[in-house]
């Protein structure tokens, strides 16, 4: 479904993403994990057309989409959410979601009905007619997902949609993501909560300092010495091995 080849991006002297290649098979849930500042969000931004890569290529559903504008990519069926939530603050929650629904539904009544259904499914029912600015952090995360889902994507890019949620909220959203995938949507997600990644993803790619250092099942990836070092610092894997 998605093929990323050798993406790279520099910000001034900082090589935020060095050489990232990964595949997301159709119907899968794939995770992209890694420490803070590893370049995960930058990778997402390049895949979805928000940041122009210095080099590399992206193919989505058999189409070469490198350097396409985000709206064309969304129209083709790949939609991202934002780690730093970006609500339309002056609009209600339902109106926010409806903007997404308008991508596939030109009829206003139909788009409104779709938006309300999607919002309700994401647990935003009681908030639908409130201004988006009144949402809590958890509510804003849900709104990001709801808006993206309302576009009826084939591939959904979720950037830390569980950050700041409490454990029961995390469980809810894990169940929801699984349900979305079972509905035929392929998912690529960035997540720090390992327990959620383990519960959801078939494959986890680990990014550190702009480079992919491991790929495998979440359990394999988490146990990889290179990954332990990336998270905990140089020598950490050896120290842990000694303690065992």
């Amino acid at each position, binding site marked *: 479904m998605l093929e990323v080849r050798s993406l790279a991006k520099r910000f001034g002297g900082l090589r935020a993403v060095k050489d990232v290649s990964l595949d997301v098979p159709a119907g899968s849930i794939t995770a992209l994990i890694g420490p803070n500042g590893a370049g995960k969000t930058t990778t997402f931004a390049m895949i979805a057309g928000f940041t122009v890569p210095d080099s590399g290529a992206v193919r989505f559903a058999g189409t070469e989409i490198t350097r396409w*504008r985000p709206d064309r990519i969304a129209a083709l069926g790949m*939609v991202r959410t934002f780690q730093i939530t970006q609500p*339309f603050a002056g*609009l209600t929650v339902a109106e926010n979601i409806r903007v997404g629904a308008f991508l596939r539904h030109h009829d*206003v009544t139909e788009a409104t009905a779709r938006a309300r259904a999607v919002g309700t499914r994401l647990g935003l029912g009681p908030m639908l007619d409130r201004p988006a600015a009144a949402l809590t952090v958890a509510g804003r995360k849900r709104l990001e997902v709801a808006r993206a889902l309302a576009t009826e994507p084939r591939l959904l890019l979720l950037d830390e949609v569980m950050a700041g949620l409490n454990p029961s909220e995390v469980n809810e959203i894990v169940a929801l993501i699984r349900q979305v995938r079972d509905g035929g949507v392929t998912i690529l997600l960035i997540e720090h909560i390992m327990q959620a990644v383990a519960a959801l993803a078939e494959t986890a790619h680990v990014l550190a300092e702009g480079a992919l250092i491991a790929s495998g099942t979440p359990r394999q990836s988490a146990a990889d010495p290179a990954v332990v070092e990336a998270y905990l610092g140089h020598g950490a894997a050896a120290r842990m091995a000694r303690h065992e």
Partner: protein
Amino acid sequence: MLKYWPVLLVVAALLPLASSSQFLVNLAMLTAFSALLGQGWNIACGFGGLTSFGHAVFFGIGAYAVAIMQTRFGINPWFGLPAAAVLGAAAGAVLGAAAFRAGLRGSYFALVTLAFAEVFRILANSLEITKGGLGILIPLHPALANFQFDDRREAYALVLAVLAVAMGVAAWLRRSRFGARLVAVRENEDAAAALGIPLVRTKTQALALSGAVTATAGVLYAQMFLYVDPSIAFGADRSVEMLLVAMIGGAGTVWGPVLGAIVLHLIQDTARLLIDTPGFAPMLYGAILLVIIAFMPNGIAGLRLPALRRNRVRDA
């Protein structure tokens, strides 16, 4: 009672048509005309968040187009009107495509629009076809067929009709897919793009629509006063008046420009009675703008008038 204020406003707008007082008709006409100008600006800038400081360019294009067409080529202004509207739309499309493709936003876009209008003012001042600084006098032939009015009430009725159309456009923006997506672009461009909205195209279309409405206002002006010159057509104070009217009343609402025009004329005419020095109007505009930005960013519409609030929450 307060709930029905739009109805009261419509009745109040129609009353002068039955009056024989020139003063009253004139006052009502100028107010309605300001509301029309404000609505022209509001369509792109209120709904789409485009910060145009040079909307006079569309007004001037409309006024000059209809004046040149009839004085040079003998084209009846009734045919000149749609042609001028098309020219206004084309100007909006060209300006929008150029500015938005270059990624201009906020104050950069404001400066470019300001410069655009200024370039047109200078051109109008120096070109032969616009008769330079002398301006164009449209020969007086009062007859409805010539789009000239003996009776001010006829002119007023026409301004009201065009204002109604412009408000219809705004009402359509509140209810349509295009309008909702335009508002989304205003609220957050990144999020809008992520949800599949083409930013450049959407903003350019809004500017073209706004250009057409504003050019139509220019046509009405030329036919009411039968005279156009470069600063009447393209002057910066015209641009400021437009955005002020919309912002006082409430940008991005259907009734905002009407309320704004009424309030602005009240303030302006009262002030003129008290202080009558040249250069006072721009100062007054500046002061009002500051007050609005500082204390009521959503204009009168932000003050929770029942009908406006209801529209706000449910539609859009």
